[in-house]
């Protein structure tokens, strides 16, 4: 079983459109690989929008621990505020904490009571480290968890899809990515699928590291713009750092042909194979509006033809790719 992750560094280069096209091409009758799909961009999970999934399993992920101070026990010694390194504890003299305290009183059994001059925790700023819990001399602080997001297994038009949605302003996006990928991998192993296709998040940090972990190959969707080239190099360094082989395809290649040449030259120097150019094509957006992959919506569109070629080059390389059972995911513990 192989695992292919689609990445970009910069956002909005077309990762999801490429992933959706591959999912479609993989579902065709003569396709050589049975595939499980995973959307690892849990902040902006868009793959479902073009795969019309029917959710069959849905589970909440709890986490996002935050501290809460019991005002009846608190002696206002100030130690919690001193030990917190995340600026998450303060009292009513600071506006952000005043608002929190006012809301807490308003939602309590005594909504008209005066707002006490005691410390309060900002749950969004709280890192969940619990340092204050252990330092509080009167045990007035306890930790609480919350639902940070949900993950789903769906039956999509192109096979099983694992995806998730993170509650806005929550942490743990890396954990949710890990969870989605683990579930996809387990199904693939249990039911003898050939491929797990992972639509990755932008950037190079925590969720990307989780998305890359265990991949046999990364396909980087680059954009021939000044910003796109800069970010492509950052993501290539990241995949190299974790020992995952990378391929590059250039999307919207004709917007700035000089940039496309620059990408090809620089990839060639680094020994990274460029597997094709996809032209800027408004059919891609039309297909998205219709909730479809571009290759299904209009197989003759310039972008569809190019994607078919790219996929034709990726398949044999993927089948010959290395073992890739690398374990460096910070969220797998």
């Amino acid at each position, binding site marked *: 079983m192989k695992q292919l992750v689609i990445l*970009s560094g*910069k*956002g*909005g*280069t077309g990762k*999801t459109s490429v992933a959706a096209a591959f999912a479609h091409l993989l579902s065709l009758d003569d396709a050589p690989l049975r595939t499980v799909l995973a959307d690892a961009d*849990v*902040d*902006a999970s*868009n793959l479902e929008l073009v795969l019309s999934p029917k959710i069959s399993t849905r589970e909440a992920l709890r986490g996002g*621990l935050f501290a809460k101070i019991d005002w009846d026990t608190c002696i206002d010694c100030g130690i919690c505020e001193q*030990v917190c*390194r*995340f600026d998450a504890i303060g009292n009513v003299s600071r506006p952000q904490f005043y*608002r929190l305290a006012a809301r807490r009183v308003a939602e309590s059994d005594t909504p008209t009571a005066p707002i006490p001059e005691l410390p309060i925790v900002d749950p*969004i700023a709280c*890192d969940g*480290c*619990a*340092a204050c819990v*252990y*330092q509080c001399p009167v045990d007035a602080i306890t930790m609480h968890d919350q639902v940070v997001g949900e993950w789903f297994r769906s039956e999509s038009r192109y096979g099983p899809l694992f995806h998730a949605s*993170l509650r*806005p*302003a*929550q*942490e*743990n*996006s*890396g954990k949710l990515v890990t969870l989605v990928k683990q579930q996809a991998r387990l199904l693939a192993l249990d039911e003898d699928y050939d491929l797990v296709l992972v639509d990755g*998040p*932008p*950037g*190079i*940090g*925590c*969720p*990307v*590291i989780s998305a890359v972990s265990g991949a046999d190959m990364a396909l980087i969707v680059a*954009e021939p*713009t*000044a*910003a796109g080239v*800069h*970010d492509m190099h*950052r993501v290539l*360094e*990241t995949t190299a*750092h*974790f020992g995952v082989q990378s391929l590059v395809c250039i999307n919207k290649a004709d*917007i*700035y042909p*000089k*940039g496309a040449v620059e990408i090809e030259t620089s990839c060639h120097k680094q020994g990274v194979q460029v597997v094709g150019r996809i032209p*800027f094509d408004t059919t891609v*957006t039309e297909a*998205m*509006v219709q909730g479809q992959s571009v290759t299904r919506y209009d197989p003759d569109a310039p972008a569809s033809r190019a994607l078919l070629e790219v996929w034709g080059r990726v398949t044999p390389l993927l089948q010959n790719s290395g073992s890739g059972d690398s374990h460096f995911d*910070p969220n797998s*513990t």
Partner: protein
Amino acid sequence: MIIAVASGKGGTGKTTVATALAQTLARADLSVSCLDCDVEGPNAHIFIRPVLNDHKNVDLLIPEVNADLCTACGECAKVCEFHAIVVLGGQTLVFPELCHGCGSCAMVCPEKAITEVPRTLGILEGGLSPDGINFGHGLLNVGEPMAVPVITQLKSWRDYMDADVVIVDSPPGASCPVVESVRGADFVLLVTEPTPFGLHDLRQAYELTQELDIPAGLIINRDGIGDAGVDAYCQEVGLPILMRIPLEREIGQGIAQGKSLLEIHPEYQHAFRALHTQIIVHPPPTSPRHQGEALPSVGGGIEGGE
């Protein structure tokens, strides 16, 4: 005043908007700071062109265990929420990539066997642009998972916060790095493209601003592509549409070459000045759903005028 530019979806034009706004205000003789908080893929410097002559490492304090003093009692491991310090076979081990730098282990160690030592996660670079913008960005080191400390330290570096206007360019998404970038802002300028993907991710970003209690307005970029879903959503929740930038090949090509929006179309500075005035004079309510009506739009981009 701090204005954060955010989006949910990547590649919608956050940096285009943030840099155009910063350049407009700098030319209007305001003191302007511009902070690129997309530390995983910072790009604003391409358009602002600062002289980055100021550098600082971003360090996180992580534990170092003195084996001579350590009795392997396990107190440190017990308080660590992140499994970054564990006791195995009578030895205390630290996993630096998992450590959040909270210092709890050092505080509870009964033998005082733990000291905290800096570990470098990335760097900050800062300097002035030709038009006088006090610019800064952070670069997360390759292989490092934690972007948040880099963003936190960038926002408290140099004298950025003393400027008349601070423009914060946020990373894409709606989780912790975005929260850290947007935190403390007086206004969030959301940028999206009018497509189903753009709409889906705008929802996430707008809900984040509501969660943080910060007023927000929207710029629709690449107007004309896609469908009317974003407009309908804005009407439904009362999110004011402050500007529209049309889908134009000339803009796309110019940005690709590293030209700022004002270099491609200088007349946009009128629309951005009007936008800034609107944000200051008539800030939209925090929760339009409950508190009032949407603001009228500045108008179709370049026609905005002063």
